[in-house]
């Protein structure tokens, strides 16, 4: 079986290599007919691929071929700025070759780029560019003619801010990069293009500020990206799972966001952003654990309010993972911890409930997750109705039928609501909650303590591209704590995070603003 598997893996790898090498090794021909033939054989059975032959009216001997994909180009632009000039203009080729003359004298497009191989032709055409073949030249020109439909700029649903910018990234790489350029108007912003996916050839851009970036992290990132071999990359999470530090940990080692202002903020701290074409989600590395509790509007609202909110999120995270376990522990192992009146209430409620407490809690936790998932997956109107009906039926009717006790409903509701406080930790919260629940069910408080110890050990060992996620600096410095548990006023945050911005740790000092 493994021998067969190895052989089939080898065959696939050979096919892929052949595919890539063939195209790379196939140059553009000076003969237009050969080029057309190659194009038709490459895009055989692809009816959206079009080849337009253009003949110059003044010199009928001059013929051109323009290749593009229908639906991907701006038809009007192509007609007015490429086809029409090629038809009616006559380039002067006394001082330069035809290709350069056409590019500089005839075409009304920006940045025509010469290409040499058919792999580049395929990549250009499939991204909405048009490719112009000129007779007698062994190069072609890619012309930027994208006209495929794009989603408008809108605020990301998962990162709504009460105050601050409402822009969010879209699916177009170039437009996303434009968001960053507008906010960082400096030559220090570097944008290195890469492509991933053997068949999808998805474009990505590695963005960083050259004078601030964490060099070791950058080198490590590039090393990991270069090692990626995959058919196609459709979303940032593909890259995330292929480059993350601990592949089996529920905790992330890369950040993600759909907001340009967040990305710019992270770039200014020395982090690196990976912008991928076709997805609005941008990855940022390195990623510290505390970033799970940070929100973009922490810097757009008063530091008092945001400090309180941040602490609330941390408490919410703890409640979300510990509430079911603690409730289970005090009602099945350690009753003495409860005040007498509360114990009597709980005992009265549970009197005729047939299921053990652990099973009751587990059932309700699973039902809550089912309801939440239903609410997300269904269309908006139906999803909300289903959530409400589910909550009413499960909550109220189940209690009346004595299947569960009402306190369990309260605990599960508290757990669920607090988990929504920190959406970035959805997966770790779910896993940690169940992990601790099992320990609590089997071992009471000692078991829960053991589970917490294991979880803490795991979290303390988390790394993100060479940096410890939980304790990045190792030494206690006051300036490092001003954006962790609380958010200090901006005029007090005089240093970048030392572990990340290894090159320049001191911001331009902001003076205390006592105006009176």
């Amino acid at each position, binding site marked *: 079986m493994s021998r067969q598997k190895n052989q089939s893996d080898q065959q696939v790898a050979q096919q892929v290599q052949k595919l890539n090498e063939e195209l790379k090794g196939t140059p553009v021909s000076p003969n237009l007919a050969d080029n057309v033939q190659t194009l038709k054989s490459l895009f055989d059975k692809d009816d959206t691929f079009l080849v337009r032959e253009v003949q110059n009216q003044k010199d009928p001997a001059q013929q051109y071929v323009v290749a593009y994909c229908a639906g991907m180009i701006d038809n009007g632009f192509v007609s007015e700025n490429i086809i029409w000039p090629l038809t009616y203009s006559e380039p002067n080729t006394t001082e330069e070759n035809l290709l350069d003359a056409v590019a500089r004298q005839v075409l009304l497009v920006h940045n025509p780029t010469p290409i040499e191989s058919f792999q580049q032709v395929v990549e250009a055409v499939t991204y909405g560019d048009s490719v112009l073949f000129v007779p007698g030249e062994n190069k072609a020109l890619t012309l930027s003619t994208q006209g495929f439909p794009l989603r408008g700029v809108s605020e990301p649903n998962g990162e709504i801010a009460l105050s601050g910018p409402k822009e969010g990234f879209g699916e177009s790489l170039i437009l996303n990069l434009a968001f960053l350029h507008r906010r960082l108007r400096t030559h220090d912003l570097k944008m290195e293009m890469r492509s991933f996916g053997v068949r999808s050839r998805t474009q990505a851009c590695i963005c960083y500020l050259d004078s601030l970036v964490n060099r070791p992290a950058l080198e490590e990132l590039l090393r990991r990206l270069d090692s990626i071999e995959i058919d196609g990359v459709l979303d940032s999470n593909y890259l995330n799972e292929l480059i993350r530090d601990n592949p089996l940990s529920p905790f992330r080692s890369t950040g993600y966001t759909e907001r340009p202002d967040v990305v710019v903020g992270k770039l200014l701290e020395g982090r690196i952003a990976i912008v991928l074409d076709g997805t609005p989600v941008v990855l940022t590395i390195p990623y510290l654990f505390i970033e799970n509790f940070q929100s973009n509007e922490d810097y757009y609202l008063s530091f008092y309010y945001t400090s309180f909110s941040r602490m609330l999120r941390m408490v919410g995270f703890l409640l979300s993972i510990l509430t079911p376990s603690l409730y289970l522990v005090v*009602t*099945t*192992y350690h*009753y*003495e911890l409860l005040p*007498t*009146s509360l*114990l*009597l209430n*709980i*005992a*009265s*409620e*549970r*009197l*005729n*409930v047939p299921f*053990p*407490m652990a099973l009751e809690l587990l059932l309700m936790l699973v039902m809550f997750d089912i309801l939440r998932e239903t609410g997300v997956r269904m269309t908006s109107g139906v999803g909300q109705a289903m959530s409400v009906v589910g909550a009413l039926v499960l909550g109220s009717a189940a209690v009346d039928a004595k299947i569960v006790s009402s306190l369990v409903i309260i605990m599960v509701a508290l757990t669920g609501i607090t988990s929504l406080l920190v959406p970035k930790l959805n997966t770790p919260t779910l896993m940690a909650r169940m992990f601790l629940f099992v*320990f609590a*069910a*089997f*071992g*009471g408080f*000692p*078991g829960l303590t*053991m589970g917490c110890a*294991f979880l803490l050990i795991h979290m303390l060992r988390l790394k993100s591209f060479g940096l410890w996620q939980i304790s990045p600096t190792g030494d206690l410095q006051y300036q490092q704590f001003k954006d962790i548990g609380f958010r200090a006023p901006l005029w007090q945050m005089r240093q970048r995070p030392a572990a990340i911005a290894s090159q320049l740790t001191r911001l331009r000092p902001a003076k205390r603003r006592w105006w009176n």
Partner: protein
Amino acid sequence: MKPKLIAPMLCLLLLLSGCGNYRELNEFDIVAGMAIDQSREGYKVTLELIDLEGSLQEGIKSYPVSLEGATVPQALEQAKSKLSRQFHYGNMEVIVLGHQVAEQGIASLLDGFLRDVNIRETIQLAVSLGDTAEEILSAKGRDLSVASYALSKMIAHANDTQLQPREVSIYNALDALQTPGKSLILPAVKAEQTNQEDVCIQLEGLAVFEQDSLSYTLPEAYIPFYLFGAGRLGSHDLAFELPESGEKSTIHITQSKTKRSFWQEGEHIAFLLDIRAKGQLDQAVAGVDLRDPSVKAALEQAAAQALRDRMLELLDYQRQQGDANAADWEHDIYMKDGSLWEAIESKSKEARSGVTMEVNVTVEILDSGIVRGV
């Protein structure tokens, strides 16, 4: 051993050892209080159990269950033949000892309670002044239906307002029994018929023990003066009469310090209680000008005399009850004069009861308006 094997092995250890203690709440009968009486077999133990089914509809209710045996643990064993659930003692708040049980000696009972891992050391003790301790748990509180919880809260409230010695837990009691020269004192409680249907519990003084047997009960009215003597009184409203006019007044004493001292005159021991109390006039005499220092002094003197009289009355009462250790004077000697303690330790109770008790009281009125030093 590889580190990767340690974590799973620890988890396995957890699985094998931990879940044996898993118990659902509906597998338990919650014990609110315990009463211990004498019976023909030995002891009759009455447990007040919480009625969970009834509690769901109409608030917390309870019912008594009586068990008999040669010893208390043996009596509790009988529960297996009467009840379907285990007892949960974690929320038991009070143990009431019957009068007869207290008179026979309670040291062995206290020792048994401390050895039992299920019974908390901080459970309150009380002595029933009625025929049995069972009638206390069969009654109810005036504002709480569960007698044990009502009694526990009453004791705690009295303790808060008057300081000790109301709240005495098992380990406190055993500690007092084993401390030389110290008398164990427990709150006394009785059940009283309030109307045709209701029998309610109320605190009724203190039960004073000699060694580990009940000696006598101190009426409720004497408790503040007992606390004066011990130097543990928080506040008290002292009523007094002006000697000349016979008019009554009240002083609210808020601070008191008691200096206890003793000295030996040959074979004879004298014990002095020097009480210095301060307070505000609660009910002043009409027409009295408190700005007059002589008037203030007269009031203070009258209050001091009244307090002294009550203190002497208390000491007399204790002597009449046969208490040779009134005001715990023996404990003071034990703590401060070891050689004297050795001399009196072996003496009989009658010989020790010849101690002369003197009381000196000073009262200062704080709200007269007179500036000190002027």
